[in-house]
């Protein structure tokens, strides 16, 4: 591997990253464990009720964040979330066609903050995020990945490349590049 460009970046603690607060949703979980040890007398096959069955949970920013936060940085075995390359406030979901009422089309915008302003891997990271989202979101979502303004010396250049469908497609044909991206996505869970 070539010389690292940033060998000592600042790292956030995993426990401090924003997560969905799930425990609060289910009251059942808040009962201390010693009282849960003895089960109530239920038979096998008594249908367990799934009362929140009808409640719809739309795709939100947190969900997008959860999809991309575990992608690893190509330079370090550290996730983009820990490196704060992606962060929750820099993700937005908006209707693609605000004027068409009831249109299911949505656009996800993810702004990327490279760890250093001259990071030559910014494009690769952007591509990685893009590929991950395109593989994981339903077709009605448009994905827009860009470098956050003022965080990269050649941000416009990179954005042009990330926004250009043809160039993205061409990049994804490149075997070596795809290998790097596949490696980045291995840590996704």
């Amino acid at each position, binding site marked *: *591997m070539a010389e*690292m460009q940033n*060998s*000592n*970046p*600042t*790292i*956030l*603690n995993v*426990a*401090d990253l924003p997560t969905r*607060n799930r*425990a*609060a949703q289910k009251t059942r979980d*808040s*009962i*201390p*464990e*010693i*009282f849960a*040890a*003895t089960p109530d*007398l239920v*038979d*096998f*096959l*008594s*249908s*367990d009720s*799934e009362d929140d*069955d009808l409640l*719809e*949970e*739309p*795709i939100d920013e947190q*969900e997008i964040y959860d*999809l991309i936060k575990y992608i690893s940085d190509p330079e*370090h*075995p*550290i996730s983009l979330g820990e490196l704060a390359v992606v962060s929750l406030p820099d993700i937005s979901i908006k209707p693609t066609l605000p004027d068409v009422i009831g249109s299911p089309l949505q656009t996800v915008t993810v702004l990327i903050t490279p760890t250093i302003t001259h990071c030559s891997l910014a494009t690769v990271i952007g591509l990685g995020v893009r590929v991950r989202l395109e*593989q*994981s*979101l*339903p*077709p*009605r979502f448009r994905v827009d990945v860009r470098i956050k303004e003022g965080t990269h010396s050649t941000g416009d250049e990179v954005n042009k490349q990330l926004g250009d469908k043809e160039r993205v497609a061409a990049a994804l044909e490149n075997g070596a590049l795809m290998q790097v991206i*596949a490696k980045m*996505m291995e840590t*996704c*869970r």
Partner: protein
Amino acid sequence: MSALQTFLLVVEHDKEEAKRIAEGVAQDVEAKKTTLIEIVQQLGEYINDEDPIIRGKAVSFLTAVIKALPPRFLSRQQIQVLTTFFGDRIEDGGAVTGLEHLQALDRFTVELATETAQALFRNFQDLQSRSQTQRFHMGDESLVGVVDLMTGEKDPRNLMIVFSILKVVMMEWDISNHAELLFDSVYNYFPITFRPPPNDPYGITAQDLKDRLQECISASRHLAPHAIPALLDKLDSTSPNVKKDALNCLIACIHSYDPDTVSRFSITIWDVLKFEILNAQEEFLSDLSLDALKGITQRLSEGVSEVSQELPLAQFLKSITKECNEQLQEPQQRQAKPAQQILSSVSSASCVAFVLVVQTVVAPIFTIYQEADGIAKQRALLETLSVLFQSAVDLFGLWTTRKSEVSIENPLIEFKDQFSDVLGQALMGSAKEEFTFRTTALKAFLRLSVLRDFFQDNEIGLFVQYLDDILLKEESSGRGDLKKEAISALAEISKHKPRLIIDITFPAFVATLPDEDDGTNKNYLPTLDTLAQISVERDIFETLFRRLFGKLSILLQKEQPGSPAYPRAILMTLLYVMRQRKMDSDPSVDLYFDKIVVGLSQSVAETASGQGRNQILSDPTVLDTLGRLCNLLRQQQVAENVYSLFSPADNFIPVPFSQGVTADQERTIIISTYLLAGLSKDCVAHIPYTSPDMSALLLDLVQRAVSESAEPATHLAYLRHVALLANKFLSKQDLPIAEKLFDSLVSSDQQTISPEKIRVIFWLAKALVLRLALTTTHILNSLLDLLSSSDFKTSNATARGFAILLGEDDVVSATNGASIRLLFKQRVFTTVIPLISSRIRDVNITGSEGQAADHIKPAHLTALAGILSTIPPDLVMPELPTLLPLLLQSLDLQTSDSVAVRAATLDTLSVIIRENGVAVIEKCGHVHSLVQRLLKTTELKTSTGAVNTPRLRVESLKCLHLLATKQIPDAAQNTSIPASISPLLPEKALVLRSLRAVLDDPKRDVRKAAVDARGAWLRSVDDAPEEED
């Protein structure tokens, strides 16, 4: 005078002449004037001479002759004979040269080399027994000879021997003049890249060779100047495996060379390893590097008892702590973490090292801490301190560990008050949502509190106070983990300082317990939970029991006791702790028995007879918990009182044979059942109503169980009671009583059998099948007949019953001494599955001819699901070809009734896939049908109107995920499987397309599972299996 005699005379002073003589003899041999055999025979008298010098000369003669012969003259046989000869004579000078020469000949085969090596090896044992001087005299020549002999060896079998020999040579001989030569001879093989050929004919692994080579390299300190730089150079390699071998070897050297040598290279090693740790690419490499540093520190600490800056150890640590201090300046940056690990490794290596590290590191950390501009930074620093605390615990021990002979004072004492202040402030003085920061402080505080001879009791008491406050006063935030940490911290302290818990925590917690649960709040639950978890220590448990039993007694006396949930929670708390402790060996067990089993059983009887102050002890959930508690406290005198509950006959009517009893009275059977379960088999004579035999008692209980009026809890107690009697207490001769009872229940004239009765049938069947009664097959057949009943209700209830048959039960269990035969599950499985399978096939063939048969197939599939859910997976696998079609048909069920069946099926499928991979399914030819059905089950809106609950959708996605990740099963992962095209490939396009739609599922969990499954198919389903490196 023969040529030999002349040779012996001149060899010492005239080498030329000796050579000429040998050449002369060689010519004779060549010209067939004499033979080698004759020459060897001539040698006879000399080679057995007592003087080793004469022996050496004699052997040299032969060597010289052979040397003079043309290279191709000697035949293979001759070489062999000579090799053996030299091999036997190896201790004499000249033999090695002879071997050396033979080895150079073309006809010297690999096999001969092996023999030579073995000969050498054999003779080295002789060498060991010879005196130092003698060995020394012949050393140089043999040594060089040995090395030359080995050069170029490639066969792993020989290498194993070569390495062993060389190790002995290096350890035992003076090699100072030949260190480099020896080193080169073994280091040529580093790194070992050997891979056993197919079928592994030698049984030698690369690791075996690596281990032996490593032993050679680390054998002598004389090798250090060559070995250490060479190994450090290897760390520049791009292959992680080479680096790993180099590090392992380095560690071996560090542990084997003497401390002075290690010291000489310590700083050089550090300079190289520093990079490996700070810029770790692979975790195992940085772990090994840390081990190496720890090893050096330990070696340098050997024999050191006084701390001084002049020590080589101090010099070594100085460069390390300097680097770490620099990295810790920015504690949030990536390299701070490895710096922390370095400190952890070196500081835990020895007490002296710990003192040296603490002296240079702690004060600077405090400075950065005070100046830190953010909590995240402070947290990282606390973590570093915590690492040092852990080292202190490793070195100085816990309060409970036996006193060690550490003579050095713990250097942390100097900072004790500072630690207490900073940690207290961090834990209690920071904002509540700084959860990770506070947790870090809590853990650090805990380590200091359990560290032997560190804090005073009042200082630990302060910490306990903090923990109490966190648990009692703070609201649970979204991330309630701080409370969890606080509880486990209290539990940890309770092991070391139980008095503090009893004096500080108990009063505070018990004071918050209400007198009754008036329904306004349930705060007592977390309080009891905490108390339960910190009361495992004996003294504390006694306090807990006294306090809680007091609370319970007051409750039982109240006219208005509030909700029964509270007394139940109190009982559960006691139950939880008693289960954690070994009650049999508790000295107070008689007291507990008296108070709980005797006292509370009597109270139950009173309540049942309407004489209680309140109805707490007639609540079924309270009774169930109390029963479990009684079950733990076992004494033989219980037997007579199983039904009378220790009460006089005029106060309380026991359940069996009673007429017109109330529901309250009937409910006491719950306690009776638990008491019965706790009894040993031998007590059967003391159980009431069992003479002359059990038939009347069983019949009475069965009749009560069949009645439709019994409450669910009472009903279950009857069922368990019957099962216990039939399984555990009924003697083998009396078994027909239960079997007849079973037959009479099954062969009822009515067309519909009530669900209650079916449950009785199943529990009775369970009792008999568990002990594998002789009639087991008959019983199972009867059950299957019921399953095929033309009456829908009977068939349906029977189908659900099959899960009871093999299911685990808390009461009829091995812990309660039920007779459970080893192979009963196999027996049931192998009897029932073929019958179910053929029945379903029949239904499929006859189709919809019989109207009544509509429910038969789902019923059989439900029964199958019930059995599969209670059977270990290894039983399932051999039957897979039969089972798989049935499982696929289960997935075809669509109604909401079948949700549980389908869920159980998916469960079974996921186990099958996880354990065996796709291969087994492919073997049965069902990959396509399976994938199709799984995909159908992931659909939210189906064309057929099937009901797929979110749980089903998630489970089927997980199966799809497993399919892709387990293309090669776990068990076969290490063996080489011929590369072939994945059987999943034809399905890939379909799966990816279908899952794309599932990505838009309204449920988040479903979407997550879909993302994972789709990702796995994208990544792993390929033309050829991926090359595992």
